[in-house]
């Protein structure tokens, strides 16, 4: 709360006139033009454009004059592939959220135990984050390939009945994608958690040690609640990634077997570009946006609206 615009009355009854409010902090406002432009024109504007066109029969090119009302939405919600996509996103989203946080935090906590070779372990956990989802999907497609991946190796070790073919089994394929997604992203979450842990006052540890609270309990009861902002940051990053998951699925399974690993972003993109049905793609992306807003607005309100006063 460095500088606040007063909501003043007009009674500054002096010769020194109150400067026009529009020009107050003029430099700051000028410097924020790119941000304001991005927020209003790109994000709001393009979103509005997208939503508008979701009510049209746009095919290959946007057709603002072919208004069809809710037709695209009716079709969307009667399409099995979309329903499967939503279900998959829910499973992937929840699991990925929980696992990323749990794995990220656990690894960070382990690294924070003043161990040897912290730098090496940290690098090992973090490096997948440098690789794109395309690469991630491709590599894990290999590793999980039943003919020459993990399954065949374990079988060759003598455990003949061992089956682990998530990418070829429609019931569990989404978990196969999850394995790859976690691999790529959890290192980053680990780093964020580690940074958060490093910010915890040493005295807290001393206090709990004196009181004889077991380490694991300290983490759960004391440390995690203290790291709330860290978890929030991690949550935003993970959630943004989940909504956008596309490349990974394309590279790893192309949505298969069948439509078992389809995700909404893939539906949107394929409808837009492959099927040349922009209206349908826009309707689907509008639904994605709506779901994001439903989750995000209450959070944003709590996070930014609730604590004006620092």
């Amino acid at each position, binding site marked *: 709360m460095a500088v606040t615009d007063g909501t003043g009355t007009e009674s500054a009854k002096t010769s020194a006139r109150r400067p026009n409010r529009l020009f107050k902090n003029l430099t700051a406002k000028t410097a924020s033009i790119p941000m304001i432009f991005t927020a209003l024109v790109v994000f709001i504007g393009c979103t509005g454009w997208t939503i508008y066109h979701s009510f049209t029969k746009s095919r*290959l090119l946007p057709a603002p004059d072919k208004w069809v009302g809710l037709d695209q939405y009716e079709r969307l919600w009667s399409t099995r592939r979309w329903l499967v996509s939503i279900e998959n996103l829910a499973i992937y989203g929840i699991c990925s959220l929980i696992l990323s946080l749990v794995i990220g935090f656990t690894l960070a906590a382990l690294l924070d135990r003043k161990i040897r070779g912290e730098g090496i372990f940290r690098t090992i956990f973090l490096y997948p984050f440098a690789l794109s989802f395309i690469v991630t999907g491709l590599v894990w497609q290999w590793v999980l390939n039943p003919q020459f991946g993990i399954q065949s190796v374990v079988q060759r070790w003598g455990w003949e009945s061992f089956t682990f073919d998530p990418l070829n089994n429609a019931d569990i394929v989404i978990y196969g994608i999850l394995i790859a997604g976690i691999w790529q992203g959890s290192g980053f979450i680990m780093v964020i958690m580690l940074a958060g842990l490093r910010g915890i006052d040493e005295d807290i540890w001393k206090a709990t040690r004196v009181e004889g609270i077991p380490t694991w309990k300290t983490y759960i009861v004391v440390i995690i609640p203290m790291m709330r902002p860290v978890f929030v940051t991690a949550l935003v990053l993970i959630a943004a990634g989940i909504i956008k998951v596309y490349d990974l699925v394309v590279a790893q399974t192309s949505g298969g077997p*069948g439509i078992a690993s389809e995700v909404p972003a893939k539906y949107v*993109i394929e409808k837009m*570009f492959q*099927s*040349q*049905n922009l209206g349908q793609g826009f309707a689907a992306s509008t639904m994605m946006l709506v779901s994001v807003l439903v989750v995000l607005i209450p959070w944003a309100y709590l996070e930014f609206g609730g604590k004006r006063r620092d």
Partner: protein
Amino acid sequence: MNLMKATTAGIAFCAAGAVSAAELEVTHWWTSGGEAAAVAEFAKALDATGHTWVDGAIAGSGGTARPIIISRIIGGDPMHATQLNHGRQAEELIEAGLLLDITAVAEAGGWKDIINPSSLLDSCTVDGKIYCAPVNIHSWQWIWLSHKAYEDAGVPVPSNWDEYVASAGALEAAGKIPLAMGQQAWQSSGAFGVINVAVGGVELWNKINVQKDAEAAGGPEMAKVFEAAAAARAMAANSNVQDWNQATNLVITGQAGGQIMGDWAQGEFQVAEQVAGEDYTCLPGLGVNEVISTGGDAFYFPKQDDADIEAAQKELAALLVSPEVQVSFNLKKGSLPVRGDIDLSSANDCMKKGLEILAAGNILLSGDQVLSADTSGQIEDLMVEFWNDASYSAADAQAKYAEIIGDAD
């Protein structure tokens, strides 16, 4: 003679517009070895005219290349020529006035007379004007059978679909996958289309796909097609590869009995040094209805505001259809030429079979030509689910299919 005239006419036409050397950026998605070699023929031919071919290859058709091509065109920064499956894909771009009218080139080259089948040119034509240059013909209606697999199973190589289905048990007993199938949507949908034509016949296919007759799509004849597809699904149950060429590889190595795939599969057999008739058999129209669809690739020329470039674009259009380029390109690509007036003596057995059918006029339009991308997409979604979920009954799938056809525009 006719041929010579056409070529010179085409080139002369362009030369008339005071040609200065231009760099032409051409976008396409031909990136594998054979494809790239074929494209190189185009490039060589263009470079020989004094212009320069700037190659804009982007692998992965459809999802990957199309948004790039379309964005470039609507963003006001179009490439000078681009590959698009001809057919209905470009209609809107033409309506929006974004593509160059090359009717003059076509007339000068006499395309109307030489392009065979004429449907290829029809697909390029909107309101009597021609907007694209077709370059090749690809057909879907083939099944590829492995001699090794049948030897191992101790049964003769079948000569039609029914025999093939009958042999499935023997193949399975020998530990073979009767039908190799990749799990991608376009493969499921394509294989279904092939079965549709073979089992249901051309007439039914046209009724549904051209006339969009939903009643026919839900009718008893089509039910047979779906039954056949369900049978094929059972035969492919153990095939768990993703890519089509992995599936082809199963046939090549004798792990699978056969695969329903377009004529591009031939390239894989060639690379594996297999000989048609000795190591593998190809049956057009599944050996039942010997027809082939005549889809293919075509090049479009986005409008530019530069007269020199436009002249060069037209020159390129003429060049692509010229006989020399057609021969050299299609031999490398393994596809059939779009001109009926040239001879491909060096083609292999399967290719020759295709040429014969083509010459006999036993042809179909391709899905691209008759169905919108949206409808194709919906059918793909349906088929990929149907093929991969054994509990999805043929009747349910048919009902859904009829619904899609009914909604098609």
